[in-house]
């Protein structure tokens, strides 16, 4: 049994079959990559996992509990965090404040008023936030408004916001898209380090094969809403069916 078990999930948008009989099993403490051409249904699958979409049929179990029917914030509290394809951050707030919010959420749960404590007095939280910002190499940008960041920085900020929650399962939707090469490599190192140090299970959607083959232990190839193959990176590299369907043009 994997930590995440997706069984026979179908999702239609009108006539469009975005997900067709998707089965996916992610082993605890592994990095599982999902690759596939644009429009294959990768993001839709993540939307189902985090409660943004409800599938037409099928089941999604996380840690032995069903995810379906729960609200997004409840699913997050079960231990699933997600980095979106288009960064979802608090644009009006500073970088530090962006990270403080998940810090508080992690400590206090869904709701706590504490209207009479100052943020500054929460030294422990601020330390934690600064620490994670150092990890993603953004410590110098603490007081910048998040909306003013470059796309790559927004992504790294979002990653920091997810990591600071210490999730059991981290979902990453094209985390290095729009990043400079140096930052991509840094991100790979960071994810590797976090995966080893904190034993976070990761599902990563990625077009950059360098990232995929550096990190993943299992790869699922999705095409037109259906998993084509699931295998180890070595076997995927050599699989002629995959080469034809997807990797044909990509540099491997």
């Amino acid at each position, binding site marked *: 049994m994997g930590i995440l078990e997706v069984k026979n999930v179908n999702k239609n948008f009108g006539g469009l079959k975005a997900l067709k009989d998707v089965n996916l099993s992610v082993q605890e403490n592994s990095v599982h990559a999902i690759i596939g051409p644009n429009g294959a249904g990768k993001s839709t699958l993540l939307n189902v996992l985090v409660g943004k979409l409800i599938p037409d049929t099928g089941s999604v179990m996380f840690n032995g509990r069903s995810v379906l029917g729960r609200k997004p914030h409840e699913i997050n509290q079960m231990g699933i965090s997600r980095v979106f394809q288009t960064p979802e951050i608090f644009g009006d707030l500073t970088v530090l404040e962006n990270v403080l919010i998940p810090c*508080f959420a992690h400590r206090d749960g869904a709701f706590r008023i504490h209207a009479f404590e100052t943020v500054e007095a929460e030294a422990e939280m601020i330390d934690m936030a600064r620490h994670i910002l150092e990890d993603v190499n953004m410590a110098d940008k603490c007081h910048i408004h998040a909306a003013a960041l470059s796309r790559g920085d927004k992504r790294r900020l979002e990653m920091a916001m997810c990591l600071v929650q210490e999730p059991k399962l981290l979902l990453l939707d094209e985390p290095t898209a729009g990043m400079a090469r140096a930052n991509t490599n840094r991100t790979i190192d960071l994810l590797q380090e976090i995966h080893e140090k904190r034993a976070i299970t990761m599902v990563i959607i990625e077009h950059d094969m360098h990232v995929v083959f550096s990190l993943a232990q299992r790869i699922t190839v999705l095409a037109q809403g259906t998993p084509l193959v699931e295998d180890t990176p070595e076997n995927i590299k050599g699989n002629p069916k995959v080469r034809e369907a997807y990797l044909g043009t990509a540099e491997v």
Partner: protein
Amino acid sequence: MLFGLNKKDTRFLIIVVLLTLFTPFLMQPFAETSPLAQFNGGYPDLMAKVAIFGIFAIGFNILFGLTGYLSFGHAAFLGVGSYAAVWMFKLLTLNVFPAVILAVIMSGLLALVIGWISLRRSGIYFSILTLAMAEMAYRLAYSVLTPITNGETGLQLRPHDPRVLDGPGAPQYPNLFGLELNDSYFLRLGDHVFTFNVGYYFCAAFAILAFYVSLRIFRSPFGLMLRAVKANQQRMNYTGLSPRPYTLAAFVISGMYAGLAGGLMAAMDPLAGAERMQWTVGGEVVIMTILGGAGTLMGPVLGAGTIKYLENIFSKINENVLHQWFAFLPDGLENMVVWLIAHFTGEGWALTLGLMFMLVVFFMPGGLVEGGRRIARLWRKRRHGGDGGADGDELHRPARSPHVAE
């Protein structure tokens, strides 16, 4: 770390306290004998109004300024506060404390109900829901609720009110343990007359408390969450936070502020009428908050003060006054000028307010506070010949995003 505030905020609070304490001087700059005496605003009624509407706007800003949820229905809470207070005066005692306490509780309860329902939607739908519900409360006050509200006549004190806690010798006017709120002490300095009124200082004390609480909320993790609601509810959800309890808490807090304001209004003038619940009153607090600067600490107070002061001055300028002012012009021209200006003064004050609001929204989207900041920055630049640098309220500067939550 005084009162749980850092040095800068403590200084800020002290300035606000001093301004409030010295309002009877500050709003009375002209001598009695001066022709400018008509621009004096230092009389109890107006000063108390500024304090009361200041409280109303400070509370409104906690909801609107921080979370971006724009309510048009806050007049309902003001009205309920007033009714609750007058009922306390009638049944229990003319001491103002029970009245104010019940006003806050009742408006808080109503806010819980209205907030619970209307916060199921956001953006324009939320605004319309609050408007509809406040309008409903207003209609009810005139119809089925007349036994409680006394309909159009309004709820008033009567000689045969039970007032079970008041003995035979108790004051016949709302009072602070015997000190009647309409008592004033006059200070004459040369041609200047300053009025120190019990009612004003009573309201002012609450205004300071209201400001302090708002300051603490702004700086707190709770305030941070409220700003997160405005910034990105999606991300909040995917961070394990449900925005609803936060918006509801902000809604109830701002409703209680409105109830406090309503209770104080009743304390200053023990009469509650349904017109206090009309949507125009709810619209006024929106205008005050935006004019002053939504999402800033001082903005709502500035907005409330500016509007109440100007309303008072402009309403007093009738055609007679205008004819006096422009008597030096040739007759035909005088009539024309008076005719023109009369549309913007007296009854036409709303027109001036509308114009003022438009100008501010167009040229200073951040309100008067932003205007003040721009001036300060210019001034600093001129002095240092360099960049203005960071300014005080930086962290809580209103965003350039639209005012309404998505």
